[in-house]
């Protein structure tokens, strides 16, 4: 019998080691797996590479990991915001490596990793700093830059609903990167508000089929 539901956040993160690369879902404050991140902080693994759209606000979410010295490198599209002072400080002090990726390319690189695509040509970033050192190729009169898949050891995600097979339904714009990240990690771990019986999610409403998910943990609503 397949049962991907684990009882505790600690179990959900079991086996994650120093040096792991970790995809973290969420855009702004929607879809952020805060409880999983907090549990990862408690677990005290280090030298992480974090791959996330944002770098967290105040001392919450990814910012907490950054502030706690857990992260060597961040791959990110928009690490800046009003309350993103930890990332600001670490960056200015040269204490963190930053790989900046345009958001559409970020998304597409994760999709490629999950879909077995070895590389793709995108028009995004051509003629800019982002394309420096990368292959540029012209197809039908238009320039494209070659980008490579972005895969990771772990994905930490948030969804609304799951079942024991790991099928997921997200809520509204809380979905954002999660369906792509789920496919791009060896170990996809999801915190959910609700666990339902098999068949409890309409098969036409499953956003992430369980094949892409390894562990599910139910958490109380953070707010």
């Amino acid at each position, binding site marked *: 019998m397949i049962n991907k539901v684990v009882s505790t956040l600690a179990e959900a993160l079991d086996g994650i080691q120093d040096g792991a690369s970790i995809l973290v879902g969420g855009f702004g404050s929607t879809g952020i797996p805060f409880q999983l991140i907090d549990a990862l902080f408690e677990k005290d693994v280090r030298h992480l590479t974090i791959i996330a759209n944002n770098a967290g606000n105040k001392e919450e979410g990814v910012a907490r990991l950054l502030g706690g010295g857990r992260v060597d490198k961040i791959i990110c599209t928009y690490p800046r915001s009003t309350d993103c002072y930890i990332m600001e400080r670490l960056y200015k002090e040269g204490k963190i490596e930053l790989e*900046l990726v345009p958001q559409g390319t970020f998304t597409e690189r994760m999709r490629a990793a999950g879909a077995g695509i070895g590389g793709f040509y995108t028009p995004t970033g051509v003629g800019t700093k982002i394309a420096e050192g990368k292959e540029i190729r012209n197809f039908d009169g238009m320039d494209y830059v070659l980008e490579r898949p972005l895969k990771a050891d772990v994905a930490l995600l948030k969804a609304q609903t799951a079942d024991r097979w790991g099928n997921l339904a997200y809520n509204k714009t809380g979905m954002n*990167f999660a369906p792509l990240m789920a496919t791009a990690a060896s170990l996809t771990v999801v915190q959910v508000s609700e666990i339902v019986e098999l068949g409890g999610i309409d098969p036409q409403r499953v956003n992430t089929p369980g094949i892409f998910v390894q562990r599910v943990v139910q958490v109380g609503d953070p707010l």
Partner: protein
Amino acid sequence: MKTAIVETELKPLTRRQMAWRAAQDIVDGSYVNLGIGMPTLIADYVVAGREIIYHSENGLLGMGPAPPAGQEDLDLINAGKQYVTIVPGGSYFDSSVAFAMMRGGHLSMVFMGAFQVSESGDLANWSTNDEKALPAVGGAMDLAVGCKDIRVLMEHVTRDGKPRILKECTYPLTAKKVVKKIYTDHAVLDIDEKGFVVREMIEGLTFERLQKMTEAELHLDPQWRVLDVPEL
């Protein structure tokens, strides 16, 4: 002895007036992305009766206005991380679909803010080249490719009077040869094969004076009109 050049007192557009002017150009049935900042004001001034569908690159098509205070949905935000609503006919999807809409050329129009625009349509709106500042690009580069109708809203010059409309951008580029039209607080300009063409200027502004505020060479459309906006 100084020669006093008496220039007409000009009344540059406010940010809301610039947004109003841009809004007039959105035709019925358009799929539009309004970039973070000033462009988001555009939605307030769309011509009545026109049905416009707003796209937000975090996975939302059919974005509605901000919710009444107290009715914010924590899982419903736009790409500017503001609480929004969804209109009937709207849909949610993952980021890869959101960016396919942009990169694949499915949007009708994109309005963005900018630091600089060059006469070949190069756009600089993500970095001021400050080596110490934390860089952040978000969806800007993706928004600037794909769509065939990319428009910029920006003040004509910087706060300290330096031109933003240039032969070549001095700030790092967001994308090359993409901007088609610029709405400034002084004028409306198109970019075509010969460079910048002035279509509208505010009351009292002369072409010579506008050219002085602009590094790139301007061409005046013989059919140019006064950039006329209501008080807002």
